[in-house]
């Protein structure tokens, strides 16, 4: 494994693996850095029934297929945790927890999300001693016992039903009025019919009780403000997710107030060559199929970006001739006329310069690299170094006087 790559993908959930498939197929030297299990959150999903082409499959099985697919295109995988990044230059730098350093031209951030904690008294202290976040992992430790589930989304209700296979009773604490759950209708109907499921409405859990192990929860009724205690041996928290983007807080990447990364249609962040896909970006629907879609888009966008950088480096920065780097605006006639004028003049003078045209709108990374704001702007480069620049429209005579 080399430390220098075309593309580095952080995270190996469905978004990261899809990006890896597209990156590998495009013959980019692609490295996936992943701290946990391959498949991310999907790896904890027992049953997936809405990924096209698979009527029913387990999360781990589906992710194994994704992984094998990526490996078939030569993608490399590294188990590690990225703790620091430097995206300020063209070569992006990554530092792992073990202190290894990796470099890539482009990066796709697919680090996903993690369960939100309520941060109520007892939650952290009794974690693993009755406080749990994963039913697949821990449900069976509560055989014949009383369990409380906090939350009413898809995960809370579906996992809650799974826990009833082991527990004596599952009590779901719901914020809303009686009969209202946040989960899908099919699951809600099933849950209401499940004899082992009970619901406490208009309520939230304010404390987990117990010394060595959980022995109950304190529940607050939000309408009346009354507090009550409920005996139980287990509490499962399913109160939503938070993006795993903490390690990027000093990277300069724009995020919203919750830490989700902002991207455009091409999955581009505000930093050229840096893309964000899957659950860690702001989006409407967080499913395997949309994660896969994100990954594909980002990898194609990254491929084009890398291609542009490579072609720029070879034809401009390593050019024997001096280069006129012309930033123009394809939508402005004057800008286009100026472009032909410059080419014509250069032709008349025996092509002393190599002209490299850059559309200001589509090659943002070059505009940023040279801090160009207006079109037309001409930057004169000699051996890749800027010698001078001119902004705005210029008449032929003046151009001639300046350059020749």
């Amino acid at each position: 494994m080399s430390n220098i790559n075309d593309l580095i993908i952080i995270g190996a959930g469905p978004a990261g693996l899809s990006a890896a498939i597209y990156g590998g197929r495009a013959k980019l030297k692609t490295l996936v850095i992943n701290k946990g299990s391959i498949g991310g959150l999907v790896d904890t999903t027992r049953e997936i029934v809405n990924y096209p082409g698979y009527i029913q499959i387990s999360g781990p099985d589906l992710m194994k297929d994704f992984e094998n697919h990526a490996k078939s295109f030569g993608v490399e995988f590294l188990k590690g945790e990225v703790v620091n990044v430097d995206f300020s230059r063209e070569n992006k730098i990554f530092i792992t927890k073990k202190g290894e350093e990796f470099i890539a031209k482009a990066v796709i951030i697919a680090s996903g999300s993690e369960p939100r904690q309520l941060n109520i008294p007892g939650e952290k202290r009794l974690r693993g001693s009755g406080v749990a976040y994963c039913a697949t992992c821990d449900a069976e430790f509560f055989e014949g016992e009383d369990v409380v589930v906090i939350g009413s989304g898809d995960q809370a209700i579906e996992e809650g039903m799974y826990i009833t296979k082991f527990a004596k009773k599952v009590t779901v604490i719901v914020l809303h009025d009686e009969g209202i759950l946040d989960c899908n209708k099919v699951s809600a109907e099933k849950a209401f019919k499940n004899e082992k499921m009970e619901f406490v409405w208009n309520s939230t859990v304010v404390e987990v009780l117990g010394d060595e192990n959980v022995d109950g929860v304190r529940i607050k009724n939000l309408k009346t403000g009354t507090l009550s205690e409920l005996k139980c041996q287990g509490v499962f928290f399913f109160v939503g997710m938070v993006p795993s983007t903490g390690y990027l807080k000093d990277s300069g990447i724009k995020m919203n107030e919750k830490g989700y990364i902002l991207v455009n249609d091409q999955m581009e962040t505000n930093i050229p060559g840096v893309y964000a896909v899957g659950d860690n970006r702001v989006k409407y629907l967080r499913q395997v199929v949309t994660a896969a879609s994100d990954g594909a888009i980002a990898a194609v966008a990254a491929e084009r970006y890398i291609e542009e950088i490579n072609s720029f480096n070879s034809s401009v920065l390593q050019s024997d001739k001096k280069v006129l780097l012309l930033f123009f605006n394809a939508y402005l006639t004057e800008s286009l006329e100026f472009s032909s004028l410059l080419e014509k003049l250069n032709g008349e003078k025996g092509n002393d310069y190599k002209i490299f045209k850059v559309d200001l709108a589509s090659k943002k990374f070059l505009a940023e690299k040279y801090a160009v704001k207006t079109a037309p702007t001409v930057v004169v480069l000699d051996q890749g170094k800027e010698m001078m620049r001119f902004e705005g429209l210029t008449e032929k005579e003046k151009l001639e006087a300046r350059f020749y």
Partner: protein
Amino acid sequence: MSLQQLDTNLFEEIIYDNAEPCLVIFSRKNCHVCKEVLPMLEELKPRYEGKFGFYYVDVEESKNLFERFSLKGVPQILFFNHGMYKGKVAGKVDEDQVEEKIAEVLGA
């Protein structure tokens, strides 16, 4: 370096008969947090070669062991010395927490 797996008999032998200072992670195959914690222990193990043992119990295969310690979830790392239980750390723990606990067990 992968951790040696213990069944009930080996557990008795290593923890109580040999009474060596060691840790045992109780884990299972389909638990994603375990898959993050286990590799961390595998990396840590060589640094404690000959000083502190690192072992693994699969709770699905050795149900009686997790019942004995009335565990409520995986992963859990249990610490032992002189055949005595010296406490545990649960859930998604990092290297520092494990090393701290090892130092505590060895120092006591």
